[in-house]
């Protein structure tokens, strides 16, 4: 009995030892050299594998970073400047500081503002709807409301608002990875500079139709009237194809354009209520709705 146990133990340990030796030899022979810094860099990255950097995942991004001579063009939008500094330290290279950004939905064509003139029926996907026709409203530029952007977001930073039928961004969660920007077939979502206290001023419209058509399709469409361009003291607003655009780098958030816009197409978010009562009641209600969409 005891001998059986003894032999069993001996033979099994012998087998184990032989196998261990073979494995060790194989590991030595087929060893693939890998830069240890790749692991370090990967450690420093957020590990979200979101693809916001343009690589399939954090590992591939780390490999690219280690391989690159100059990493100033590389940026991890999720980790931001802190992460990039850490990476630069590991690699002993320089990295340019980038401004933090946030995704902004440039359409305010809610159910109230933009009448539905047809009903779409088919797969619930903006991409497919956009390939079929110009959308349920008369504005073929605006939000289709099927939530492709929500689908691709890895950070729970964008949601559909049931009341308005538009997506809204939760600024705190948004990492500006750009997935929603790529997913939107109508290119409504833009990554804009993140201001203090998450304040925002932007033209919440992408309609390039002529004024009459744009206004008919949507109450809060930009009609390209040029008023904001004229009033802007910083030359921050351009007008192209009947559509105004506020350049984030030049805008100083003075809000003069908001006051002159006849259709309330310029969104103003995150500001304290104003003291002067220049705006009429109608405008106020429209504004409230807008901020409801946004925050």
């Amino acid at each position: 009995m005891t001998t059986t146990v003894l032999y069993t133990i001996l033979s099994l340990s012998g087998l184990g030892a032989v196998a261990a030796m073979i494995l060790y030899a194989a590991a030595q022979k087929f060893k693939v050299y890998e830069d240890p810094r790749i692991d370090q860099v990967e450690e420093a990255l957020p590990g979200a594998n979101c693809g916001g950097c343009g690589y399939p995942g954090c590992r591939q991004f780390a490999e690219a970073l280690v391989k690159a001579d100059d990493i100033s063009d590389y940026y991890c939008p999720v980790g931001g400047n802190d992460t990039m500094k850490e990476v630069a330290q590991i690699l002993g290279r320089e990295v340019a500081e980038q401004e933090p950004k946030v995704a902004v939905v440039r359409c305010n064509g809610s159910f109230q503002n933009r009448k539905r003139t047809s009903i779409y029926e088919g797969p619930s996907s903006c991409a497919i709807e956009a390939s079929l026709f110009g959308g349920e409203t008369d504005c073929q530029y605006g939000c289709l409301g099927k939530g492709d952007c929500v689908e691709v977001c890895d950070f729970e930073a964008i949601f559909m608002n049931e009341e308005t039928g538009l997506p809204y961004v939760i600024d705190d969660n948004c990492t500006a990875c750009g997935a929603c920007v790529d997913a939107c077939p109508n290119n409504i979502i833009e990554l804009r500079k993140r201001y203090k206290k998450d304040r925002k001023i932007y033209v919440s419209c992408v309609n390039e139709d002529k004024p009459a058509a744009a206004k008919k399709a949507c109450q809060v469409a930009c009609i390209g009237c040029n008023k904001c361009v004229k009033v802007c003291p910083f030359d921050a607003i351009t007008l192209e194809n009947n559509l105004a655009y506020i350049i984030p780098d030049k805008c100083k958030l003075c809000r003069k354009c908001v006051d002159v816009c006849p259709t309330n197409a310029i969104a103003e978010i995150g500001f304290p209520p104003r003291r002067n009562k220049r705006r009429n009641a109608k405008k106020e209600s429209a504004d409230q709705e807008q901020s409801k969409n946004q925050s």
Partner: protein
Amino acid sequence: MSNNVLTVSPSPHVYQSTTVRKLMYGVVIALLPTLAWSVVSFGIGAIIVTLVSVISCILFEYLIERFLLKRTPSITDGSAMVTGLLLAFNVPANLPVGIIIIGALVSIGIGKMSFGGLGRNPFNPALVGRVFLLISFPAQMTRWPIPKGFNTSYVNAQTGATPLGMLQEKGEATVSKVMESAPSYGDLFYGQMGGSLGEMAAFALIIGLIILLYMRVISWHIPASIILSTGVFTGILWLVDPTQYADPLFHLLTGGLLLGAIFMATDYVTSPMVPKAMWIYGIGIGVLTVIIRVFGSYPEGVSFAILIMNAFVPLLNRYIKPKRFGEEVQHG
């Protein structure tokens, strides 16, 4: 101009009237002749087993979808009913009610819902339940009542061996010896033999096959390939040594072969998509069945053969492609 708000949708704008529900009820209709014959042959037992099986399958599907998966139950699509019927067809007509309910729970719970429900299960749910019961309750699952006209008693049925069981137990005797005591081909064709509730009556199953083909519920490839391959394989064995091996007709008419070929192997979800793959699948089932029956220790192997081939279906779907239009002429 009218102010009608028009619906815009991608083409096509018309659809065939066939729905999943219609297809499932087509299977149910095709199963009815067999069920009717079973009731006539086995009596009250057949009714109780079938009712318990169908009701518990539907109930389990409802409960699981409602409370575990938390979605709208889809019991009306008829698939649970088909599973229930097929499970009942695959067990003896005097199986204790408790065991049937366990079988239904395994079929629906493990065989189907654990994978996400209709369309996602890799194995035929009814067969998962059946094989589970066969392994867990071998005694009860192999006590076959003899079909002797309508029997009003559930438990006190007279039991006997199946023809395939006799073949398995033959020991040193030759096949011809066994054949003497086995039922005649006529009896086999009309289901006058021991066996599961729905597997004995060849003619009723063939009526079912005709209904399925006529209603375009299934294509002919799978039943044909299973029957042909079984016939050919057993035929070869029989020609080699008729004293050792039973003839092909005996193999085709006994056990669950026809039930399996017509109703179990053709289950949409667990069978291949392309005719070429269907042939491979069917031949695989036929060959495995014969191997298990003739060389294995179980008298019957259709269930196992189908489950084994079910496992190959994803592989077949992946590698066997239909011939594309204009494929032969390669274009630069």
